């Protein structure tokens, strides 16, 4: 990204360095580099996730505990205020409906930061004893034209919301505690917001390449430490 991509997660698929060291040979095409990155399994395209909630009344207690447990405590918890729009690309293919979900997230409190485009797949079935949800996830930083791009691509806006809260880190784990508000219907984020509930959403997640199941165990152990304030669980979306 050339425009303000400070927060861009640059995943080392083709670093300038790699290109420079191959000074006199033609640089690999981006497709080739991506294929070799896929083959060597270095793309963090799996999300390990646990979710739960805490009522407003006790959120301070939870934040206090997280401050004690997490890494980024010196300068206080990091706050965020994001707007997320959930799109889907749909069509009927010989009787079978095909749906391709895409989400766009932008920081309302950091207008210069790139937008984030995200694909989240179905949660993987597999081992029932696995401690967390595992689902495929592709995260891409992008320019602000993404919203118009998706609409013209044929995507439909399903719903949108804002999330405002705190973000903590513990090793590779990310913990967010956020208040979710509905928005949309022509309202700008911040106008006529409608609280979803009297609780905060608590999420514990890690992005990793597939097969890094050991991280799920670390997440389970961490989730144990937050009990009984919040019960982080595998939420089965199909049952909701």
């Amino acid at each position, binding site marked *: 990204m050339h425009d303000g991509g400070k927060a861009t997660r640059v*995943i080392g698929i083709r670093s300038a360095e790699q290109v*420079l060291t191959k000074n006199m040979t033609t640089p690999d*095409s981006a497709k080739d580099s991506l294929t070799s990155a896929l083959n060597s399994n270095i793309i963090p395209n799996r999300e390990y996730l646990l979710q739960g909630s805490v009522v407003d009344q006790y959120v301070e207690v939870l934040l206090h505990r997280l401050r004690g447990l997490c890494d980024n405590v010196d300068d206080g918890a990091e706050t965020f205020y994001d707007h997320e729009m959930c799109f889907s690309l749909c*069509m009927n293919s010989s009787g079978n409906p095909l749906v391709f979900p895409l989400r766009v997230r932008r920081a309302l409190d950091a207008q210069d930061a790139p937008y984030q*485009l995200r694909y989240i797949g179905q949660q993987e079935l597999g081992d029932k004893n696995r401690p967390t949800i595992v689902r495929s996830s*592709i995260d891409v930083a992008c320019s602000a*034209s993404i919203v118009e791009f998706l609409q013209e691509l044929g995507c439909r806006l399903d719903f949108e919301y804002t999330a405002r809260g705190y973000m903590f880190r513990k090793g590779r784990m990310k913990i967010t505690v956020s208040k979710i508000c509905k928005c949309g219907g022509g309202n700008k984020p911040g106008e006529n917001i409608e609280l979803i509930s009297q609780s905060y959403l608590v999420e514990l997640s890690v992005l990793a390449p597939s097969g890094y199941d050991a991280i799920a165990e670390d997440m389970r152990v961490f989730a144990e430490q937050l009990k009984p304030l919040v019960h982080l669980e595998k939420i089965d979306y199909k049952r909701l």
Partner: protein
Amino acid sequence: MGVTVLQQFPIVEQRTGPSTIELLTKRIVALGATQQGQFLVDCETYSSVPQLGAQKTVHVLHNSEQPATVFSILETGSKTIPLITDGLFDLLMMKMSNFYQSKKQTKVESKGPRFEIGDFSVKLGSVAVSQNFKGILVEVEYRPCIVPAMCWDLIREFLQGFLGSSVSSTPPPYLQNKMQEVYTPNDTIQQYLEHFTVYRKSHFKM
């Protein structure tokens, strides 16, 4: 990042692509340029499947000058929307293959040696449409400046200096509307796409 002008270089009869590149290499080296590796700009085009309604086209381009970036251009017939993203966008396009499919025979790339000479960088690209050689694109970038109007004359003089009379004295059409604006890497991509589209059309006639 400065201002870039992309210029087609005609291939005279009796000359092949490689010998023309060699000729231009000799000329630029004689001016004092040093070779700084190779470069590659490629473009793949995806079209929406009929079930999605009116046909839309997504061009996905990469430039070795911005190796962590993917440039996409969506054409709907009435609108053209550029999108700049991280490298993993390619992975998303693969996932979207039920909706948008690539036309393999239209993959275009321009690649060749890259030179530096003072404040300019020069790239001599051989253009190939699905591996068939189509022509030569010369890219000249004047790096200290980001507003085309302020350096067009300098770039023109430099281009004419080593390409000769094939260089027009007016800026390329794409740049004409943007002479007073700040130049971005996306503008380079747009110029490549315009030239690639012309080469592709010549491909279909053959």
